[in-house]
């Protein structure tokens, strides 16, 4: 009997509610997802685009002003040489990490619930990396020379980059990450673009989606190579995503600035990145599933699972803060100790405690199942978490730099309106890209969801048989 009830329990665990209500047919999935890009453009879409692209335009103006005038228009000044530029860069790169985690790591762990959110999360990765990429180019002082970041032979100077510097590792890590994420995303899109191509009713759509889907036919041979490529990309992206924020943290940890020079940075940055990225996925998903009416495919269980990840990574981040504090005392290094006392009780204490309350306290509400499944509540918490994670980067950068060893070199960083408007503008860029993505591309990986529906049906059938067989055995036992 015990064995039997375990089997039934396992059935529940093997097939968590991927969808709600009646199990959709394959055609229902195609219909629900493709229709988004096929209906006539809604007036609200133009309104949304007008708003987001104006914000992006403002960012463009701010950058033009910066380039024309110089970095002096930012609040960066000795001793705080890294201000909002690097804070925002690290913030955006971190957001991207959840997308890769969902698309690659959860794929390798066979977490089926990822299928209906992975496309969306991967898009978020790409757009976040695009926002992050705004900063390294413009913060170098002479943006028209930004290509010097890459090892391109330059005859008239005959110089090469310093490959021993973590800043150069960062260039390679971020550009590799952006490229591989784009490739991974595109590979996943090919079969779905073919679906939209085959449903196209106008020649224009046929040609556009036809070119984008490369003539995909869905033959068994195609799928064979495709699945292999997908598996390899997942395998490559997994260590890659861990390496990216590790290397970003090296920008700080490899230096000898008290407050930066710590070995805990790589794991702590990676956990924080996943934490903020999942929060961003929740923020966007709560809105998108409602606007595009895919609540039956992106269920409350998906959001619940993501909130569990937020809880877990948020707790890791809290643990890392505690460890940092402990080590600053335990190391016996007076500069280390001062840096951390100053962080928590100095002029930036307000930022430090904002960070702690947003990142450590707010996710703890997710211990309660009812709160994890409460849409307005999780929406608010997900935004609070991202505010907290932005402050984390700001605290790390500003508090470690603003008091140099000599009190004569002390200062206090204040952002200028150019800093603020540029950062606000990156949200415009992020959302503009999303507005285009959700309009023209399938926001849910149709072929993957169909494959999962088929596998689930198959599994149910198999387990039903197993249950029937064990029941039969009991009957036989009883007869004896």
């Amino acid at each position, binding site marked *: 009997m015990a064995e039997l009830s375990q089997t039934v329990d396992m059935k529940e665990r093997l097939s968590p509610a991927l969808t709600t209500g009646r199990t959709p047919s394959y055609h229902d999935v195609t219909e629900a997802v493709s229709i988004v890009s096929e209906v006539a453009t809604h007036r609200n879409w133009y309104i949304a685009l007008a708003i987001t692209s104006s914000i992006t335009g403002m960012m463009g103006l701010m950058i033009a002003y910066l380039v024309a005038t110089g970095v002096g228009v930012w609040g960066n000044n000795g001793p705080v040489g890294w201000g909002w530029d690097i804070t925002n860069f690290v913030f955006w790169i971190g957001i991207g990490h959840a997308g890769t985690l969902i698309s690659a790591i959860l794929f390798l762990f066979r977490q089926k619930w990822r299928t209906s959110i992975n496309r969306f999360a991967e898009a978020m990765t790409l757009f976040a990396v695009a926002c992050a990429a705004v900063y390294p180019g413009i913060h170098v002082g002479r943006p028209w020379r930004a290509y010097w970041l890459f090892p391109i032979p330059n005859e008239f100077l005959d110089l090469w980059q310093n490959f021993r510097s973590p800043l150069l590792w960062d260039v390679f890590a971020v550009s590799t990450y952006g490229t591989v994420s784009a*490739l991974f995303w595109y590979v996943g899109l090919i079969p779905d673009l073919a679906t939209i191509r085959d449903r196209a009713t106008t020649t224009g759509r046929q040609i556009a989606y036809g070119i984008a889907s*490369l*003539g995909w036919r869905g033959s068994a041979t195609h799928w064979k190579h495709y699945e292999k490529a997908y598996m390899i990309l997942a395998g490559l992206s997994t260590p890659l995503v861990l390496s990216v924020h590790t*290397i970003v943290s090296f920008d700080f940890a490899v230096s000898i600035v008290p407050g930066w020079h710590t070995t805990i940075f790589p794991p702590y940055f990676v956990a924080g990145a996943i934490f903020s990225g999942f929060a961003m996925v929740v923020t966007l998903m709560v809105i998108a599933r409602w606007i595009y009416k895919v609540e039956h495919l992106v269920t409350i269980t998906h959001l619940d699972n993501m909130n569990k990840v937020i809880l877990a990574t948020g707790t890791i981040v809290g643990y890392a803060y505690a460890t940092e504090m402990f080590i600053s005392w335990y190391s016996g290094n007076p500069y280390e100790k001062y840096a951390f006392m100053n962080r928590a009780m100095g002029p930036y204490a307000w930022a430090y405690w904002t960070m702690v309350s947003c990142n450590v306290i707010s996710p703890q509400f997710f211990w309660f199942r009812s709160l994890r499944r409460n849409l307005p509540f999780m929406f608010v918490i997900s935004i609070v978490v991202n505010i907290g994670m932005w402050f984390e980067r700001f605290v790390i950068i500003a508090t470690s730099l603003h008091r140099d060893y000599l009190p004569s070199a002390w200062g206090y960083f204040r952002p200028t309106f150019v800093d603020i408007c540029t950062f606000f503008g990156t949200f415009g860029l992020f959302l503009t890209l999303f507005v285009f993505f959700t309009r023209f591309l399938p926001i849910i990986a149709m072929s993957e969801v169909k494959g999962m529906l088929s596998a689930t049906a198959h599994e149910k059938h198999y387990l039903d048989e197993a249950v029937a067989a064990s029941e039969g055995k009991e009957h036989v036992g009883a007869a004896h």
Partner: protein
Amino acid sequence: MAEKPSIHGLVADFDSPERLMGAIKAARKAGYSKMEAYTPFPIHGIDDAMGAKQSNLGYFVVCGGAVGMTIAILLQWWTGAVAYPLVIAGKPFFSFEPSIPIIFELTVLFSAFVAVFGMIAMNGLPRLYHPIFNYSGHKAITDDRFVLIIEASDREFDATATRDFLAAQGADKLELIEA
């Protein structure tokens, strides 16, 4: 050499992956070998059923990764120790420890390029025309139909006998398509 047949093959259209798999297994048993299946999503075990070999994309990816790794080592050694040797903080011109991040990144980058473009090339894409597009119902393949083609070049192929055979497997629709 027989001249190229003007008929590409016989299409059998099924409504579920289970039916398609059943038909593939039966067709193999009946001695057919030149067949191809078209499905809206990958179906587990279909390659074994059709007797297809595993994808060897992985070997190419390993080679791509090795190339990336070599380039990363040579780039960092040559620029740092040969072309532009500069003492920075008393560090050696070239050593492995600080080179590891870039070695790792370029290995991953090259592997990923080979995985994606290798997959596209091995699938013969991009391709504008294929006989399957002559099948009247081919547009439903990327939606919810499961299609099996037995090619006319198969030794066992016979327009009437193959049609009867596939009809017996539960196909909803049968159609001869042109090459």
